């Protein structure tokens, strides 16, 4: 068994799990919920093993480094964090409907990394600029933040959906979602969590840039977009704390913020150019 097999299993398990969560939600068959959860947990364990094995394999190839060095590795790590983060939420809030909105993000990230022709899956040696522990810290912190924002976006969509019919009764589709107040609260906590990690991600990235090039900030497109994302969520936090924004408006900001996250990663690598273009193949 090698890491690519484990990661393929992960991809299919995540897709199946996302499908199950959606199925359970749409057709209101809570009995199947446990199957969705178990498949998510199974996929998560498979991916954990796959990432670990890929790490080991890189050492066997004599170019050992943590599996966080290129587009493929960072996107599957992203999927790993999203699913881990979601499972934690499911465990804390004991609610599976969120899975229908969060799990698809993890499954999509994993599937895109696996099937897209834009990414190579090879384990490559680290070029000199990438040989830094600050870079590792940077990738990990950023992706934890981005994963939280993906989940927040799922929650935001959930809020907007439920908000279309506030008085949906117990037995209806939207009625099975948590109360608006609860969704809003979880969204807010998720944004706080993500904002903290994104801040840490931008800072560790700046420290890395300074140790490699002697400039902690050079306004290259990737840096700038991560800052734009940061401004968007800072805006959301302030609007909430000081102007009492909540509900629909914050839900929309989670969607906009997540689009900015996607652009920071996908858009900058494939549509713009800059220092970070190492990830583009």
């Amino acid at each position, binding site marked *: 068994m090698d890491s690519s097999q484990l990661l393929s299993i992960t991809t299919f398990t995540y897709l199946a799990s996302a499908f199950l969560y959606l199925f359970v939600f749409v057709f209101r068959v809570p009995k199947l919920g446990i199957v969705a959860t178990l498949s998510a947990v199974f996929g998560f364990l498979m991916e954990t093993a796959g990432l670990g094995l890929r790490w080991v394999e890189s050492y066997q190839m004599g170019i050992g480094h943590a599996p966080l060095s290129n587009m493929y590795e960072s996107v599957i790590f992203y999927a790993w964090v999203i699913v881990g983060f979601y499972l934690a939420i499911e465990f804390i809030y004991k609610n599976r409907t969120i899975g229908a909105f969060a799990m698809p993000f993890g499954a999509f990230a994993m599937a895109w990394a696996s099937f897209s022709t834009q990414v190579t899956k090879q384990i490559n040696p680290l070029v000199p600029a990438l040989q830094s522990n600050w870079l590792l810290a940077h990738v990990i912190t950023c992706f934890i933040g981005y994963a939280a924002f993906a989940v927040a976006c799922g929650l935001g969509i959930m809020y907007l959906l439920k908000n279309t019919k506030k008085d949906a009764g117990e037995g209806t589709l939207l009625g099975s979602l948590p109360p608006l107040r609860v969704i809003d609260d979880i969204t807010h906590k998720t944004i706080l969590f993500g904002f903290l990690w994104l801040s840490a991600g931008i800072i560790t990235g700046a420290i890395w840039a300074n*140790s490699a090039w002697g400039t902690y900030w050079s306004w290259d497109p990737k840096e700038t977009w991560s800052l734009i994302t940061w401004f968007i969520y800072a805006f959301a936090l302030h609007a909430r704390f000081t102007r009492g924004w909540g509900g629909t408006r914050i839900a929309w900001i989670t969607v906009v913020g997540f689009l900015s996250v996607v652009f920071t990663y996908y858009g900058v690598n494939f549509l713009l150019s800059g220092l970070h273009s190492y990830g583009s193949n």
Partner: protein
Amino acid sequence: MEKKQSTVWDTIWDFFASVKLALFVLFALAITSIIGTIVPQKEQAVVYIQKYGPAMARIFELLDIPDMYNSWWFVALLSLFSLNLTICSLERLPNVWRFITADNLRTEPERLAKMALRRRFTSALSPTEAAAEVEAVMGAAGWKAQRAEAEGGIVLFSGKGAWTRLGVYIVHISMLVIFVGAIIGSVWGYKAFVMLPERSYTDQVYAQGTNQAIKLPFQLVCERFDLTYYPNGAPKEYRSQLKVFDNGQEVLAKSIVVNDPLQYRGITMYQASYQGYEEFLVTLADKNSGESETLRLRPGQKQQWNKAGLTVGIVKVAGTQSLSSYQLRLWIDDEQGEPSVFWLDSTQTASVARPAATYQVSSKQYFATGLQVVKDPGVWTVYIGCTLMLLGLLVAFFLSHRRLWVYIDSDNGTTRVLLAGVANKNKAGFENNFEALAESLQENSKLQLGKE
């Protein structure tokens, strides 16, 4: 100051203290920052004319778009951001400080009776005895209480984390600290570059952008540069062996790689690039005497090692285009018999026997190392700001100010106990603490609490 007398000055102050302005500035920064990620930055004027046409290029020039992050309007936006942050914080800090230092023992019982978290009991003990017991129970639960007599009753108060109300301000100040660091760096620092060939020295570097010469307060020597590759041909390491001479004395030697620079007297040398020449360094070592010499040779050129009476030349070079691997056809003559002529591989050390001595011969390509030379006295200020920001965010998001009161009085001979509490954040977590405390009060056998 009273509202009625509001002057122009107050209006201006209120404008800069408003959170609406903060929201506007955050929004404006997010939107305008996009421009510089789409329009290429710091290109020559012709590039913009070619790409966007003369009319658009003219507009770009007016608005400083080609260097927008240093443009007057973007800097103005950042200044507005800082001013907003400063004034907003100045406006609010005094209130927060009053809150933190407030004497909570003087909170009126009527307010306690209206708090969201509250519990009423009766006790068989006298108020004084009950207060002592409650105080003990609170202390055991980690809520060390202060005590005061008030309006015919006894107040116990215990608060935790009042200082956490400062978290938000730490975050805001941290941003100002980062800006100060950035300004220090741009006023008193520089970024420069130098191409330093192996076995040479310099005390001059060239400013980025202007190419102006900057004199270093020391001399920098590059002893050697090495480039290594992975088996698949990707570069593995760029390594420069550097030495620093200060006043003619060698003070520092370090071999630097990308991500591990050399620092001396506040100036940092980063491995940034390199240049390979079609020249070679050929090293000869006399096996017996241990003496050695390195000669810099171009193909087709001869040089002498006088002390050993040797003449060395490169007849021919074979190898890859980039010279990542090569072979030299070397020619060595000591005027004692036929010269030695042989192939030497880039990775190889050859042993050459001559009548007078045996020499170990090795070679490497001749390089210049490209060093980014940076003086940035503001970096540590920026890093302190970053640390403060993370600490501040942790405090602001996850720590809360929790306050607990117990008010005990007597009503027609019955002792009444009111437990009340409030937290500014993480209310659910605090509620659990509150419930736990209420339960341990109730379970206390001496207090003999009953529900009112």
